[in-house]
Structures are given as C-alpha cells and as structure tokens.
C-alpha cells in the first residue's frame, strides 16, 4: 500500500446542498461536487475547508459517507461529522448554497474482496461514516452478498447509519457501552461469533476498538482461522495528501531496527491491514 494514491486535480469548489443534525451533535452535510464524486471510492476521504477564509486554518478530514446521484450519475458526496471543536462547529454552521473548498478523493479505498465472502463492517462511533458508501458499492456489485454491519457507540445517541444500511439489505447489530441499545458491551464482542472461513472484515472507529479487533483477529489466526481484516484509521490530518507528515501511525517494518516505522496514514492509508499496524505503539486518542 505504499504507492501514492492520489492523482490529478484534488482541489475543488463544491456547494453545500444539505446540512442537518441527524443525531446528537452529528451533522450530515451534502456537497455538490460532480468531478470529485465521479471518482470517489468507498473508504476514501476528503479534506473540507471549515469556513471561507483562513480561520480555522487547517482543513478537516472526513470519510466519504455516501454519494449523491442525479440521473444515475454521482454528482456529490455526503459527509457525517460529529461536532468536537471549532472546525466541526464551523462546518455545522455552513449554510445551504455556500461554496465550500475541498480536496479529494484522497487515500487508499477499502479492499472489498469478492461477492462470495461474508463481509462484516465493524464501526465504532462516528467511524460508521464510510459504511453507507461501502454497503452501496457492495449492493451494486452483488444484490445477494451476505453483508453484516456491526456498530457500536457509547450510548444509543451515538449509533449511526443503522436504518440506511439495513435498507440496503445488510444484517445490522448494535452494541453500546451502557446497554441503552443492543448488546451491552463492545462491538468487537459481536464479531467473535461470526468468525468463520469466508469472512472478511473492514473496520473504522477509535483506536481502542481497533486494538480489541486486532486481538480478536489474532486469536482467530492462532486457531488457524485467517480472517482478512482492514482498518481505516482516524488520525488527525493537517493536510491529507502527504505533505506534512503529521498523521503518522506506527507500522510493522522488519527493515528497521525496532521493527517499526511511522507511515503517513493519509497516503499509505487511511486503510491498513490490521496486522500492518503496531497496536502496542498506537496511542489512544479517543
């Protein structure tokens, strides 16, 4: 995954065509930007300008949650964002019809395997964002593939996209930390009973979820069950296209004396094989 993933003109000016609060502190923004939407793949992301001008200075990275269509052609993107600071608040305040600068599509997409596999999407919190587009892409490829969406959140207010993904014919299971919806516990506990040959896992969420996912996948491997598993990391990204080296994650590297190096998650990822990351060195930012 070390080939530079981006090509051509990344900078675009879109128009905000929708911006509504769909859950507590969670906003769904629609941006019309046909030239970007045409080439967007599931698991890729965009960098959004929070406001016109330079304050806040840096753009914010968001998974492409879904695509907007017109006459069957992709003409825009949807992003799902949780308000956590001044930048995301500024984005929530964006008005319909406003121009919005963006870069994208960026990064390596998920590998979606083949339609004969059981694909399991594992999401934690706002890490749910990429999976509407993933589910849509899978359904376009095969109406019959078995697809499961396991989604966790700290409580029922922070569980996203269950209806949208269920409508696409996927099995949906929910876990919450406080038991207010679905399984009382972690989303990775829902994964364990599903593991069998032919399962492929793709995940997005906070680092503690990834760490427990890595344990589950490794335990399966030790039982002789090799589950292909990719994770999409959520590091904060000042640039998103490989210029700043700020968004690094520790990855396994036998060529280095300590067995790891830092990889720019924007261009070497954001999608990594779960076994490529040194989870013991990964900080818990969430």
């Amino acid at each position, binding site marked *: 995954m070390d080939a530079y993933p*981006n090509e051509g003109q990344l*900078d675009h000016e879109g128009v905000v065509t929708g911006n509504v609060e769909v859950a507590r502190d969670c906003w769904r923004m629609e941006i019309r930007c046909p030239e970007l939407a045409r080439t967007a793949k599931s698991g890729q992301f965009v960098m959004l300008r929070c406001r016109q001008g330079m304050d806040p200075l*840096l*753009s914010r990275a968001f998974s492409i949650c879904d695509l907007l269509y017109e006459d069957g052609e992709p003409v825009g993107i949807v992003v799902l964002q949780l308000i956590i600071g001044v930048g995301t608040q500024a984005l929530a305040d964006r008005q319909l019809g406003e121009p919005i600068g963006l870069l994208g599509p960026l990064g390596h997409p998920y590998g979606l395997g083949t339609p004969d596999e059981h694909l399991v999407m594992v999401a934690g919190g706002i890490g749910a964002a990429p999976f509407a587009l993933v589910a849509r892409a899978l359904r376009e490829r095969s109406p019959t593939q078995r697809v499961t969406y396991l989604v966790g959140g700290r409580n029922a207010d922070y569980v996203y996209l269950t209806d949208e993904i269920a409508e696409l014919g996927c099995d949906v299971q929910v876990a919450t930390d406080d038991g207010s919806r679905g399984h009382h516990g972690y989303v990775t506990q829902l994964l364990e009973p599903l593991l069998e040959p032919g399962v492929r896992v793709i995940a997005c969420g906070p680092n503690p979820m990834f760490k427990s996912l890595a344990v589950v996948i490794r335990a399966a491997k030790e039982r002789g069950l090799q589950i292909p598993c990719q994770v999409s990391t959520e590091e*904060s990204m000042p640039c998103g296209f*490989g210029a*700043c080296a700020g968004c*690094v994650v520790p990855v396994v590297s036998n060529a*280095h004396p300590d067995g790891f*190096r830092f990889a720019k998650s924007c261009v070497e990822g954001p999608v990594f094989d779960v076994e490529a990351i040194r989870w013991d060195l990964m900080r818990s930012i969430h």
Partner: protein
Amino acid sequence: MSDAAPSLAVRLGALELRNPVLTASGTYGLGYEFARLADLGAIGGVVGKTVTMQERLGNPPPRTFETAGGMLNSIGLMNPGWDGFVRDVLPRVLDLPCPFVLNVAGESEEDFIELARRAGQLDGVAGLELNLSCPNVAGGLDFSSSPEAAGRIVSRALAVCDLPVFAKLSPNVGDIVPIAQACEAAGATALSLINTFLGTAIDWRKRKSIFSRGVAGVSGPSIKPMALLIVMRVSAAVGIPVIGIGGIATARDVLEYMVAGAAAVQVGTACFLDPRLPEKIAHELRELLAEEGVDRIDELTGAVHRQQEQVER
C-alpha cells in the same frame, strides 16, 4: 501601465528563478510526490524536506496541533536518510519541472560538512539549504544560535560544495542580525528567514504538554508579522538576498515580504491547504503586478528601505 506581462523572474546569486514562489522545507515533501497534482513548472522551485545523514523515523505522535491562525509541529525530521534519498528520491526530483533545492541538517557540524560535500557532487540540484534551525530534534537550534557556529558551518560547507548555499536561520535567538551577518561574511548565497518559532500546547486535563518533547514549532499566518519584521531588519543589514518565510498564504503576502526586503519567498504551512496553492499564488502575483503597473517584481525587493531613506533625508 505597461502592456508587457510583468516579469516575475528573480535571482538568488547565480540561481535564476522564474518567479519568487518556492515551497518551504518540510511542507511539500520532496516535491515529486505532488508532481501529478500540481503544475510545479509554474512555481519558482521546491525546497525539499530536510535530509539527514541517517534515516530518521521522526517523533512519536501527536506531531501537530492547530493554533489560532496557525499550527504547531514536532515532526522531528522524518526522512529516508542520505542513502535512501539518493537511491529512491533523487532520480524523481531531477525530473521536476522546476529547480529543486536540497535541504540538509546534520547532528553535528561534521555531518553538515559531509552532507554539503555529497550534495556538491550531485548533478541537477539547484541549491543547498542548510537547516541550521530545526527546533524539533536535540541540538537542532544550536547551529544558528551564535554567529560563530552559523558562520563556520556556512564557510566550511562552501569550501566543499559549489552549489548556491542558503542558510536557514532560527527566530528563537536574542538578535538574529549578527548571525545573518556572519553567514553573509562566510559567503552564503542567501538567507532563508525564518524557521518556526518555539511554542507548545498543553493538555490541562492530563497536566502535560501535547508534545512528547515539550516544545514544537509555530507556523502559519499568525507568525507573519514577526517574520516580516525579521526580514525587514535583516535585509537592511546584509547585502545578500533574503528569502522570506513565515505565514505566506496569498500573493499579497508575497509582495509584502518582497517590499520588506525579500528577494524570494517560501510558502510553508499554507501548502497544507491545497497542493496547488503555490502555483495559484504565482499566477495571482502576475495579476496584482499588472493591476499596479509594476513591470518587474524584483523592483519591489527592499522598497520599504528606499522609502525609509527618503523619509530620513
């Protein structure tokens, strides 16, 4: 107003640039990564991310933190090292449609000299920038903290390297002017002013700095007034070209730096907003000059000093 398109060409010693817009070290990789995203033929040149003798993994994250009007970084000179640079990167930067200035840093004075010697043997590199001022590695600031240290490294580098040599200095010193003058006396082709200001960010709940080293470098529009003053003061005190760096994000910023005394500029943090920002700035420069009836951009360099002289007379 002249009908001819204004000339954007500038000169740094023997090095001619098609326009004054360079990318700043550490903000645009080694340039080649973005050759498919931007028209690098439209900018003055790329100054590469610092290359050190040995590979460096860089500092553990978090490495950056956004501030009002800017950001902090503590990347720690992540780079493939000299051998990795020559093997994997050099062939690609030589294909760039603009000059490539190699930026190097040593852990010791001897490292700097050896890196300069090796750089001098490369074909196709347009210049050498000595990073005497990295705040994010142990001892990185020592090389530009005194006139003697900075002057000696520049002088010794020039003795083993025929390339134009730029000295990139730190603003985190008591008085930068004597350090700049020492670099000039040592024969530096130009001065790159400035590297980041020291700063930090605190996580009050954890009662500690965000950064593992406690310090980081501040960059972005918020440092422009301080950097602009340094460029104005130093350019009044030296005869060699000054390259202005600090918070440049628009063509107007470029022109302000040039009037303050810069012969060229480097766009840094603002590159993170858009890989095509440097070329957009270069295009906008031409428009602004045409509007203002300025034929040659290099006429603006140091205009503030000439204005000042008139006031004093």
